[in-house]
C-alpha cells in the first residue's frame, strides 16, 4: 500500500537528492513510470539500429564502415542494459519487448524517418545523438540509481558518436558539390524532427510534472529543447551548415536562440504511427523477433538438456 507516510518519506528522500535503488520502497506509480520511460528508451536504441544499419553495407570507406558497425553495436549494448534496468523494477524483458512489437509502447519517433543518403548517418550522429545527449545528461542525474548510472555510461558513448558524425558531416560540408548537397539536404530533413525529440511543449506534456516531482527528470521538455538549439546553432555555423529555420534569431536579453514554430501536427502524426517508416520499423523488429523464436527456444532446450545431464552425472 502506498500510504501517505510512505509517500512522504519517499518524497523526502527524492528532495534530499538521494538515489532510489531497486530494493528500496517506491510508489507503484513511480515504478510504472520508470518502466515506461526506460523501456521506451531501450526500444529507441534498438529501433535506432535499423536506419543506421541501412548504411553499413554501403558505407563509403572501410573506416566509416567500421565506425558505423561499432556505433550500432553500442546501441545494442545500450538497449541491453536499459532492458536490464527495467528488470530491476520487476519487468520481464519478453513482456517489455512484446509491448512495442505487438502493443502500443512507444519508441523515439525520430527513428521513423528514413536514412536516404550517407549524410543522414552523419546527421544522426551529430543532431540525433546530440539531442539524446542533452536528454541523457539530465537523466544521468535521475533519482532512480540504475537508470542514472545507465545514462552516464550511455552519454559517454553517445558523445563519441556525436563527435564522429559531426566530423564526417564537416568533411562532407566542405567536400565536393554532391557531398555538400547531401549534407545540407540531410540537415534540412532532420532538423525539425530532432527538435521534436524532446517531446511536446511543456503546456502539452502530461507526464512531465510528476516526473520532475520525483526527480526522474530534472528539466522540462522546453528547457532541454532550448539548450539543444543554443548549442546546435553554433555548431552548424562552424561547419558552414544552414539550419532550415528562417526565424532563428539570437535574443540578447535571454541569451538564447529563438526558433520558429515546430510542426507539431507532424509530431503527433508520427507518434500515432503515421510517419514515413513507422510500419517498416515495427515490421522489421517483429520479423526479427518471430524469425528468432526457434533460435531462442533451441537455446533454452539445450540448456535444459545440459542441466539434466549434469544432474545425472553428479
Amino acid at each position, binding site marked *: 500500500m502506498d500510504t501517505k507516510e510512505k509517500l512522504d518519506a519517499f518524497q523526502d528522500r527524492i528532495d534530499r537528492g538521494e538515489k532510489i535503488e531497486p530494493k528500496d520502497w517506491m510508489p507503484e506509480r513511480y515504478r510504472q513510470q520508470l518502466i515506461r520511460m526506460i523501456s521506451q528508451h531501450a526500444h529507441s536504441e534498438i529501433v535506432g539500429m535499423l536506419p543506421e544499419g541501412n548504411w553499413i553495407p554501403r558505407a563509403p570507406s*572501410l573506416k566509416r564502415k567500421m565506425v558505423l558497425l561499432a556505433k550500432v553495436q553500442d546501441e545494442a549494448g545500450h538497449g541491453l542494459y536499459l532492458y536490464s534496468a527495467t528488470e530491476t523494477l520487476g519487468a520481464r524483458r519478453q513482456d517489455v519487448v512484446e509491448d512495442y512489437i505487438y502493443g502500443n509502447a512507444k519508441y523515439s519517433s525520430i527513428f521513423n524517418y528514413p536514412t536516404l543518403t550517407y549524410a543522414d548517418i552523419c546527421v544522426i550522429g551529430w543532431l540525433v545523438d546530440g539531442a539524446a545527449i542533452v536528454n541523457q545528461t539530465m537523466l544521468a542525474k535521475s533519482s532512480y540509481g540504475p537508470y542514472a548510472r545507465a545514462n552516464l555510461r550511455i552519454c559517454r558513448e553517445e558523445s563519441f558518436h556525436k563527435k564522429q558524425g559531426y566530423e564526417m558531416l564537416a568533411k562532407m560540408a566542405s*567536400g*565536393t558539390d554532391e*557531398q555538400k548537397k547531401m549534407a545540407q539536404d540531410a540537415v534540412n530533413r532532420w532538423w525539425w524532427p530532432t527538435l521534436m525529440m524532446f517531446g511536446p511543449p511543456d503546456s502539452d506534456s502530461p507526464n512531465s510534472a510528476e516526473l520532475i516531482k520525483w526527480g526522474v527528470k530534472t528539466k522540462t521538455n522546453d528547457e532541454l529543447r532550448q539548450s539543444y538549439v543554443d548549442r546546435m546553432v553554433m555548431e552548424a555555423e562552424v561547419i558552414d551548415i544552414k539550419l532550415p529555420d528562417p526565424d532563428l534569431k539570437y535574443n540578447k536579453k535571454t541569451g538564447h536562440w529563438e526558433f520558429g514554430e515546430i510542426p507539431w501536427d507532424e509530431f503527433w502524426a508520427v507518434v500515432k504511427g503515421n510517419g514515413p517508416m513507422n510500419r517498416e520499423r515495427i515490421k522489421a523488429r517483429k520479423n526479427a523477433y518471430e524469425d528468432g523464436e526457434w533460435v531462442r527456444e533451441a537455446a533454452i532446450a*539445450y540448456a535444459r538438456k545440459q542441466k539434466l545431464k549434469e544432474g545425472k552425472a553428479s
Partner: protein
Amino acid sequence: MSTFDKIPETKEEAFLEVLLRLADDRLIHGHRLSEWCGHGPELEEDLALANVALDMIGHAASLYSYAAQLEGKPDEDYYAYFRDDIDFKNIALVELPKGDFAFTILRQFLFSAFSFFNYRELIKTVKDEQFNGMLQKHFKEIKYHLRHSREWVLRLGDGTEESHRRIQEAIDEIWMYTGEFFHLDDIDKAAISFNLYTDTSAFKKEWESLVFGTFEEATLQKPDNDQYMFEGARSGRHTEYLGPLLAQMQFLRRSHPEAEWK
C-alpha cells in the same frame, strides 16, 4: 586458375596474393555478418554478430593496408571499393547469402575453425614482423569467433527438432563450398615455396576432427564427403551472389571517387 591469374615469380608478388586472399575472405564474410545488424534472433546475438563482423572487416582493412603499402596503392579502400568481382580472391563460402541463423552460424563455425588452424600455422611460418604481428592479433579474436559459433552449433544441433533440422540442412547445403579451404592452386604453392603461406592440407585432418567432433556432440549427421565440390572463386570464378554484394558495397564510393570519405 583463370586466364588472368599470374603465378608469382617473386616473393613480393606472392606476398601480395596471400594478403589479398586472406583479406577478401574476411571482408566478404564480415559484410554478410553485418547484414544481421538489427535483425538478430536476440539482442545478445545482434551484439555478437556485429562484433564478429567488425573484427572481420577490421582484419581485412589491416591486411589491405599492408598490401597497399607493398603495392604502392593509395590505401586499403582501393582493394575493397575499386576492384570488380572477377578480381576478388575470396572463397565462395563467404559470399553465399546470409540465410537463416543456422546457416550463418554454421558458416561462421566452419570458417573460424579453418582460420584457427590456418593462422596457427601461418604464425609459425611467416617471418615478416608486421604481418606476423597482425596474424597474432587476429588469432586472438578468431579463437573467440570459433568458441562463439561452436557453442551455437551445439545449441542448435542438440536444441529442438526445428533447430536440429535447420542446421542439418545448412550442413548439407554448405558442404560443397568447404573444398576451397584445402584446395591449393599454383599461387598458393608459390606462396608456400616463399614461406608465406602454409600447406592447408596438412591440417585438414585436424579441422575435420574438430568439425565432425562438434557435429557428433551436437547429434548432427556428417555430410556426404563424396559430393561435388565447388572450386575456382580464389581465381575470380565466383557464384552469382558476389556481384550484387559488391554493387551494394561499392556504389557510393564509386559514384563519387574524387570525394573524401575517410
